């Protein structure tokens, strides 16, 4: 495939086209997309994938601008996938991430792509996983994935990355609730942003709240310690500690085989998801558009048959 070669050559336009392909909702694009990913997966790069999640407006994009600039100045190559949640009634959306990433987007060593999440739950969008395969093959050192953290979404996002980071703001007690509910299970680093100006005091208080909450969490032996870091994205403070922490955790995880284990788990998760998706779309295609379902629904209403008769009937038919 011509596209594969070009992606491997880090051709900007081709990487972009490849991502469009894997994100496409048109069934006709699916075959090509499968081929592309199947080939690229055989050319793995060395990317470390880092997820940044957190509530809206907490400063994720601003953090990525500051932290990314810091990395680019150290000659790292960086790709950013920003999943933008905004979308309105008619389905259109405004992708505003670039207004927060005006410095870093100038660098030749970055590739920045925003994707409208189309309301898909989980903050990750259809195709995000595939996009990170493309970017890995294209040779980026880091792939950052920015997602909005609402409810379930963190689990999904965490399933795509090697390191998962939760960004929080000063004095937001709400997330502390989340901690107890188990965010700690998959967040590796907690970053308290906006540690500047009037907010400084609040920020350090929030950080120590997190630290003490984490102390209740019992760490298994072969697990890296979870870190709480204080940064100011606006004043560009604390970026060195973030990269140091990321590097340490990666090193620890590689040493303890957690790194590979995670990737393996994610792969099997992906496979299952792929199966689920395929069944789902086949199901949608085969069941529901026909008059048979319509008639049987009527029969259920009349009390002639039960809904389980109907669902068993279709399942049997589908599996046949």
């Amino acid at each position: 495939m011509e596209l594969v070669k070009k992606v491997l050559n880090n051709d900007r336009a081709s990487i972009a086209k490849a991502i469009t392909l894997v994100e496409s909702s048109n069934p006709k694009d699916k075959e090509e997309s499968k081929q592309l990913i199947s080939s690229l997966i055989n050319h793995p790069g060395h990317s470390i994938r880092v997820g940044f999640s957190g509530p809206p407006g907490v400063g994720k994009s601003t953090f990525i601008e500051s932290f990314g600039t810091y990395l680019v100045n150290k000659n790292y190559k960086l790709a950013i996938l920003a999943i933008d949640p905004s979308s309105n009634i008619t389905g259109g959306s405004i992708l505003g991430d670039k207004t927060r990433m005006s410095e870093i987007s100038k660098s030749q060593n970055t590739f920045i792509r925003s994707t409208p999440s189309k309301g898909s739950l989980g903050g990750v969008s259809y195709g995000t996983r595939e996009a990170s395969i493309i970017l890995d093959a294209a040779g980026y050192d880091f792939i950052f994935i920015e997602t909005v953290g609402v409810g379930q979404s963190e689990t999904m996002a965490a399933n795509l990355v090697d390191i998962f980071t939760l960004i929080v703001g000063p004095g937001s007690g709400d997330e502390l609730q989340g901690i107890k509910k188990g965010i700690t299970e998959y967040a590796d680093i907690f970053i308290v942003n906006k540690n500047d100006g009037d907010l400084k005091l609040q920020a350090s208080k929030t950080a120590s709240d997190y630290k003490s909450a984490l102390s209740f969490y019992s760490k298994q032996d072969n697990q890296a310690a979870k870190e709480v870091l204080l940064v100011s994205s606006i004043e560009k403070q604390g970026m060195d500690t973030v990269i140091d922490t990321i590097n340490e955790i990666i090193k620890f995880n590689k040493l303890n085989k957690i790194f590979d284990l995670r990737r393996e788990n994610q792969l099997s998760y992906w496979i299952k998801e792929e199966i689920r998706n395929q069944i789902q779309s086949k199901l949608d295609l085969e069941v529901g558009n026909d008059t048979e379902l319509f008639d049987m629904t009527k029969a259920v209403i009349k009390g002639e048959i039960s809904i389980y008769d109907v669902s068993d009937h279709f399942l049997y038919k589908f599996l046949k």
Partner: protein
Amino acid sequence: MDKKNNKNDQLTDWKKKFEAETKTSSADDFLINTDEDIGIKPLYIEDDIKNLNFVDVGSFPGHNPYTRGPKASMYINRPWTIRQYAGFSTAEESNNFYRKNLEAGQKGLSVAFDLPTHRGYDSDDEIVMGDVGKAGVAIDSVEDMKILFDGIPLDQMSVSMTMNGAVLPILASFIVAGEEQGVAVKDLSGTIQNDILKEFMVRNTYIYPPDPSMRIVADIIEYTSKEMPKFNSISISGYHMQEAGADNVLELAYTLADGIEYVRAALSKGLEIDDFAPRLSFFFAIGTDFFMEIAKLRAARTLWYKIMKDFGAKNEKSLTLRTHCQTSGVSLTEKDPYNNIVRTSYEALSAVLGGTQSLHTNSFDEAIALPTEFSARIARNTQLILQNETGVTNTVDPLAGSYFIEKITDEVASKAWEIIQEVEELGGMTKAVNAGIPKLKIEESATKKQAKIDSGDRVVVGVNKFQNPKEPKIDVLVIDNEKVREDQIKKINLLKGSRDNKKLEKSLNELTEDAKNGNNLLYSTVKAIKNRATIGEVSKALEDVFGRHYATSVGVSGVYGKYFEGNKEFMHVTKKIQDFEKSYGRRPRVLVVKMGQDGHDRGAKIVATSFADIGFDIDMGPLFQSPKDVAKDAVENDVHAIGVSTLAAGHKTLVPELMNSLKELDPKNKIIVFVGGIIPEQDYDFLYEKNISAIFGPGSNIIESAEKVIELISDKNNQ
């Protein structure tokens, strides 16, 4: 019969007749809602002006609360100052233009700087290539400033300068130019705009972040209060807010709230209120809502009196609000442009009936380019005729006592006061601005206005009704920015070759030190400028300490879509977009951008959010992008189209550069590029030759534009 009863009978009678004539059920419910959400009644009567909140009907001009004017005699003693805002190309050319205007009867000067100067870049800086001398005059050093005022005695001429971002080096250059002309600092008169808060809200020529910027404002107020007794230290401006889309109440409220914030900043320097408050001046826009504008000016004086009294001011000059006004540029149209002369005349009359101290009237080519000598003359003559032929100067506040005027003056004041209190609760305007609230409110209001025009609910003659089938051809001022840039670079090189670099470096270091230690920055800036530092060098020295500010807002979506809920044309385009999504597996994706130093973002934001409402995926670029950055964004996000919004005349440089960058990054790209904003018709062919697919000028209907864009995108992708 008793007089009162008689009036009541008359009222009942009037209502009956009104209802019969208009075929409505109740005269009491008959209200016409303004943008300010004030219900205008068909008739105002004596009862309406009883128990007003702020207005003291029957108070006198020159007497508190100064509703009727800051002076007792107003225009009888001295008519308002005709002060036309102008500047373009080089200092030499602008100087020439100023001198001609002064000869023709203009009274004061008002300097418009170009965008690189506003943003603290010298003309030789790569990133301002397309902008030098285009939207104002290029000033790189005190040498340019001296040329600008050559032959204009600065001890006699009051000079207004619109400068906010690079206010330190520009005011310093003015001071040094005066000195080198033989005029002492204390004898300089005029006004410096120095209003940074509204830059963050709407005008976009900021340089540093809000906090250090506020400190600079205070430094200048302190310096002028000590050294320049005849100079207005600030022009607290609502003008730009209205031009950006604010209604009159928002404009008034945020302007006065800004004023409060500046007073506090000055007080924090240890000044006494009456040391500086007499030198605070204001600036408002006068749009087409004739009576509302008059009410706004009267309300402004009334509220400012209250605010200053609360601050403990005693000097009458502190207690009175003096203002400059400018007729509205955004009310003027590209279509059938001679209509603009008429619009401007009404607006000018409104400003004068409101009691303005000075006035700028716009030229009829406002929506096309900077004024020509011809259009500028008519704009000026509009005021000369008003002053000399109509008799409006003979009587002070002639509309006082009108039930209607007094009542809406009070309503505007009351509504504005509410918003001012909200801002105070947030902790003042700096905090509100930091939180982005005023900006969003103004953008929301702007989008509503657009929806009203696009739907035809608001008539704009020549645009959405009564179109002229034979648009007239008019002459346009053309500026050769390549040539201006070359000239400026020559002058910069000359300056840099002849100055004492040791002395310069020492004074720049001093400046940096002062920035860190909190000393008043204007003193050290004056020294650096004397030592021939350029505007860019001073700005950079300060930026090294303060950093640069980047705005992040993307506008408010949903407003336009809500207005058109259920509208047929709107849904028709939405449907086309959904069809496209079905065929191509994603929605049509458009990158909307601003390039160069052009900070006009009203149109870009309205179009972006409205397009998203219609169904597009819109990537919104930041302000001040280079064509190269835009190309990179476009390619990485694999957009179908780029919509360039350009209003500050950089298009002939920036658009071709964008096309080249796109080709370089992706030789086979299918990205279509279209352009919106201020494009003189003379430039259309030039742009089409560069492969621009469409041009959307001022007044374009957004739904129609969206349809055209989706068609262009579909065609391109069908190929």
